[in-house]
C-alpha cells in the first residue's frame, strides 16, 4: 500500500460556504489564491478583506477572515479608513472592473496617491457581471454587451481603459502588476504576484495593486473554457501581462 500526501486541498483561507459564482467563473480561482497567500503569509488572523459591489459582493461569506462590505467603488476608501486606525492589520480590497475602473476609479487612484499600505485585487473581466453584462470601461472594442448591443464602438464609447498602466504613473504607488489565471502555470505566477504584493504590505512598503485578467462565461455567452481562451486571445493582447511598477527595486520612492 501507499501512503498519501495531500498536495492540493481547499484553502483554510476560505470558509466552507458554497460560492455563488456561476459555474466556471474565474472569480473562484482568484479567491483561492488570495486565500492561500493569506494563509501562507500567516496573516489571516489579522486580515480584513473589503468586499466590493459586483459578483464578488458576497465574498464576505467566502474569505475566512474579518470582512467589510463596501459601497460600490468605495472599497479603497473603506480600506484607507481601516488601515489608518488599525495599521497592524493586513487589508485587501477585491474589486471588479465596474467597481474599480468605473465608479470607483477616484478612490483607487487616491489610495495609491496617498500611498496607502493596502493591496487591491482588481478583477478585470471586461464586463459588469452581477448586473447582467453591461459594458465596462475595460470592455474591448467590438465586444457585445447589454449596453453595447452592436459591440463597443470607439467613436461613441471610447477606447478601453488600461488600469495597471494608468495606476503605474501614480508616484505614490509601490507595486503594480497584471496577471492572468488562464492555466495552472499562470495561476502560479498570479499567486506569486499576490505573494509579492501582500509581502510589501506586510513590510509597510506601501500601495500594491494586482490586476487579474478574468472571465465572465455567462455574460460573455461562452463555456468556461472558451471564455478562458477568449481572454487569452483577446484580452491579453490589449492588456499585456507584466510588472508595471515596482518601487521596491531602486529609485522612485
Amino acid at each position, binding site marked *: 500500500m*501507499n501512503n498519501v500526501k495531500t*498536495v492540493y486541498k481547499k484553502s483554510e483561507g476560505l470558509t466552507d460556504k458554497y*460560492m455563488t459564482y456561476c*459555474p*466556471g*467563473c474565474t472569480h473562484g480561482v482568484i479567491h483561492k489564491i488570495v486565500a492561500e497567500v493569506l494563509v501562507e503569509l500567516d496573516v489571516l488572523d489579522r486580515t480584513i478583506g473589503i468586499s466590493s459591489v459586483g459578483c464578488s459582493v458576497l465574498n464576505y461569506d467566502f474569505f475566512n477572515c474579518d470582512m467589510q462590505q463596501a459601497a460600490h467603488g468605495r472599497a479603497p476608501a473603506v480600506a484607507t479608513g481601516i488601515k489608518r486606525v488599525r495599521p497592524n492589520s493586513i487589508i485587501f480590497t477585491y474589486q471588479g472592473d465596474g467597481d474599480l475602473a468605473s465608479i470607483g476609479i477616484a478612490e483607487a487612484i487616491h489610495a495609491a496617491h496617498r500611498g496607502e499600505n493596502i493591496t487591491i485585487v482588481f478583477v478585470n473581466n471586461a464586463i459588469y457581471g452581477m448586473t447582467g453584462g453591461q459594458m465596462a470601461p475595460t470592455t474591448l472594442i467590438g465586444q457585445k454587451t447589454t449596453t453595447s448591443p452592436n459591440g463597443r464602438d470607439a467613436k461613441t464609447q471610447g477606447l478601453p481603459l488600461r488600469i495597471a498602466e494608468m495606476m503605474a504613473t501614480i508616484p505614490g504607488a509601490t507595486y503594480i502588476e497584471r496577471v492572468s489565471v488562464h*492555466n*495552472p502555470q499562470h*495561476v502560479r505566477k498570479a499567486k506569486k504576484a499576490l505573494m509579492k504584493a501582500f509581502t510589501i504590505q506586510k513590510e509597510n512598503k506601501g500601495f500594491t495593486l494586482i490586476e487579474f485578467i478574468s472571465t465572465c462565461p455567462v455574460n460573455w455567452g461562452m463555456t468556461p473554457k472558451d471564455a478562458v481562451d477568449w481572454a487569452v486571445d483577446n484580452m491579453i493582447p490589449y492588456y499585456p501581462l507584466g510588472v508595471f511598477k515596482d518601487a521596491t527595486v531602486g529609485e522612485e520612492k
Partner: protein
Amino acid sequence: MAKGRIIIDIERCKGCALCNSYCPVNILDLDITTTNLKGYTPLISTDPDKCIACGFCAIMCPDSVITVERFIKEAK
C-alpha cells in the same frame, strides 16, 4: 499505476468542465448520469489509475471541489 488520486466533492461541483481541459492525461469528464443537489452534472474521473497527481485540475477548479493526494512509496 496511479501516482495519486483526486477526491471530488460532488456537492460543491458546478459541472463547469473547466478542470478537465487541463488534465494532461485526459481522465476527467462530467458524469451525465447524475445531478447533484444544486442541479449540476458533477465531475468524474473516467480512469483514476492514470492520475499523475499533477494537481492541474484542482488548481483550475474555481470551487475548490478537488483534493489531490500523491501516493508515497513507503520505504520497504
